[in-house]
């Protein structure tokens, strides 16, 4: 066995350039597979961590978007109001519920203007959900219900380049003709929508944007010991009654975080399949490259094959030598591909971290991934080599020896 490996390796060395070109075809595919899987795993574990941190005990109630709705529903009806909030709070198993309303708006600092997301939030929201990352204050303080002309701003206002001059706590921003003083700044979230946002007290927001008792999106905290999915069902029923809506015709949606996670996982699985599919095609092309190289090798070495048979090689010996040869092409391609894949994964991780400022995207290289990729590339090589190797093995010794 070992000797056959040596013979195979020897043959690859003699056609160095061709071997490397063949290997190139394989390692691109393997590099794609390895980097995609590692980044995918990294992203997935990050999202899971996030969900874990936010907690599985939360439910999100939001108006259904216009998309896919029958023409009957007007924008007006698609809003969640204070009555809806009260109804939700009345459901058993609900510990607390609060809405956040948002609008995109022009805000100005001195002569400069920007369009950002402005959000209205009550003190109670902070009390219920204050431990999540999105509400962490890194300087100044959080909003109170008495803050009628104060705001909390996203990271970019103070530490980023949103404005020509970096602002500081105590500076004033003008929103819809009214001056607001900055009292706090939130932790960096890594996406511009959140990091450019401005937060104000809910009632102040409602007056300013004239949205009545609109609650926007309502977040519900489920009491300890209650099943979030069951509570979500009950909220749905309660809201249907309260809003006089038929089942399956609701103008709102109730989602638990575990459902969101599932949705995410579903989407992720599809994306993964598509990406792996692309990688598989490139591997297929690489495999065909190996097959081609091996057919050429069989043709070139016909006389040698005859000689080997004349000195006692069985068909199976010849088969193994050629299979090892193609397997080695795959294996070396795999090893280089893995190295390259790790490089790509780390590079993407580095760029993503630099761009977003937070380690959202970590490339995860597990032992199983690396070993799996190595075995897989060896198998791809062997499979690609089967037909040429069979052809070599079947050669008749006398005829092979006559071959010029």
């Amino acid at each position, binding site marked *: 066995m070992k*000797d*056959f490996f040596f*013979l195979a390796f*020897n*043959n690859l*060395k*003699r056609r160095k350039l061709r071997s490397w070109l063949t290997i190139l075809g394989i390692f691109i595919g393997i590099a794609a597979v390895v980097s995609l899987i590692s980044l995918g795993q990294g992203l997935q574990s990050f999202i899971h961590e996030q969900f874990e941190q936010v907690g599985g005990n939360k439910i999100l109630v939001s108006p259904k978007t216009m998309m896919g709705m029958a023409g009957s529903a007007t924008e007006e009806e698609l809003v969640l109001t204070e009555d809806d909030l009260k109804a939700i709070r009345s459901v058993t198993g609900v510990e607390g519920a609060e809405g956040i309303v948002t609008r995109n708006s022009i805000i100005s600092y001195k002569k400069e203007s920007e369009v950002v997301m402005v959000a209205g939030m009550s003190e109670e929201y902070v009390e219920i959900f204050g431990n999540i990352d999105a509400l962490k204050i890194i300087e100044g303080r959080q909003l109170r219900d008495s803050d009628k002309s104060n705001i909390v701003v996203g990271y970019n206002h103070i530490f980023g380049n949103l404005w020509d001059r970096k602002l500081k706590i105590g500076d004033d921003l003008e929103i819809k003709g009214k001056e607001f003083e900055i009292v706090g700044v939130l932790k960096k979230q890594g996406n511009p929508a959140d990091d450019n946002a401005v937060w104000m007290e809910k009632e102040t927001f409602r007056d300013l944007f004239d949205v009545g008792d609109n609650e926007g999106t309502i977040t519900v905290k489920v009491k300890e010991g209650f099943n979030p999915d069951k509570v979500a069902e009950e909220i749905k029923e309660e809201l249907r009654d309260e809003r006089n809506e038929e089942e399956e015709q609701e103008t709102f949606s109730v989602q638990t975080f575990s459902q969101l996670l599932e949705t995410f996982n579903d989407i992720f699985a599809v994306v993964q399949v598509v990406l792996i599919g692309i990688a598989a095609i490139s591997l297929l092309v690489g495999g065909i490259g190996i097959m081609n190289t091996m057919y050429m090798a069989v043709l070139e070495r016909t*006389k*040698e094959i*005859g*000689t*080997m*048979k*004349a*000195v*006692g*090689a*069985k*068909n*199976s*010996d010849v088969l193994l030598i050629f299979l090892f040869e193609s397997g080695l092409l795959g294996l070396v391609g795999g090893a280089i591909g893995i190295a390259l894949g790790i490089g790509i994964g780390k590079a993407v991780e580095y760029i993503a971290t630099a761009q977003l400022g937070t380690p959202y995207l970590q490339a995860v290289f597990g032992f199983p991934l690396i070993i799996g990729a190595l075995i897989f590339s060896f198998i791809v090589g062997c499979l690609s080599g089967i037909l040429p190797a069979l052809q070599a093995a079947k050669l*008749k*010794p*006398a005829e092979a*020896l006559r071959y010029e």
Partner: protein
Amino acid sequence: MKEEIIKLDKVDKNYILGDSIVKAVRNASLTIRKGEFIAIVGPSGSGKSTLMNLIGALDLATKGRIFLEGKDIEHLEESELAVIRGNKIGFVFQTFNLIPTLTALENVTLPMVFQGFSKEERIERATELLKDVGLEERMKHLPGELSGGERQRVAIARALANNPDVILADEPTGNLDSKTGKHILEILKDLNKKGKTIIIVTHNLEMARKVDKIIKIKDGKIVK
């Protein structure tokens, strides 16, 4: 009388080329005994190589039977034929047929690889064989770095690797100058003295005169 080692009984070998049949060997019968030195002579295209291939189990007869040590090789499996080629017969070719990527030593060990000898055994025996043909200085050289005569000596060492009883040499001196060719023939004669059965295809009549028996072949038929 020594024991029979090879026997051909009314052997035909036909090649089919498109819709014409080439009768390369016709109704050939012969007996070769252990320790004989045999020369096969005949014009080009007369079927000498074809006959050699049949004797060496490199090819199967179209008709008739071939016995090796009393065994009919017609009825053997491919893998059994391979074992015969590996163990009972050593081939020497006109074009040397060394594996260009392997050193002289590795080329000589190759037949032993297929018989499953350990690396130590192989290297020990191959070193010995290369010494016998005077190539101990060239063991680590690739075939491309050797002269024709040296290559053929490596090939002879390789043919002896598994200590076969029979050496088949198809025009072993055909690609060599006469002096080198003589040297190769000396080596073969020596081997014959040590008990090997040797069958050689040659055009060299001077050489052919020195052997035990000459088999003349013309148009695929053995004439004497």
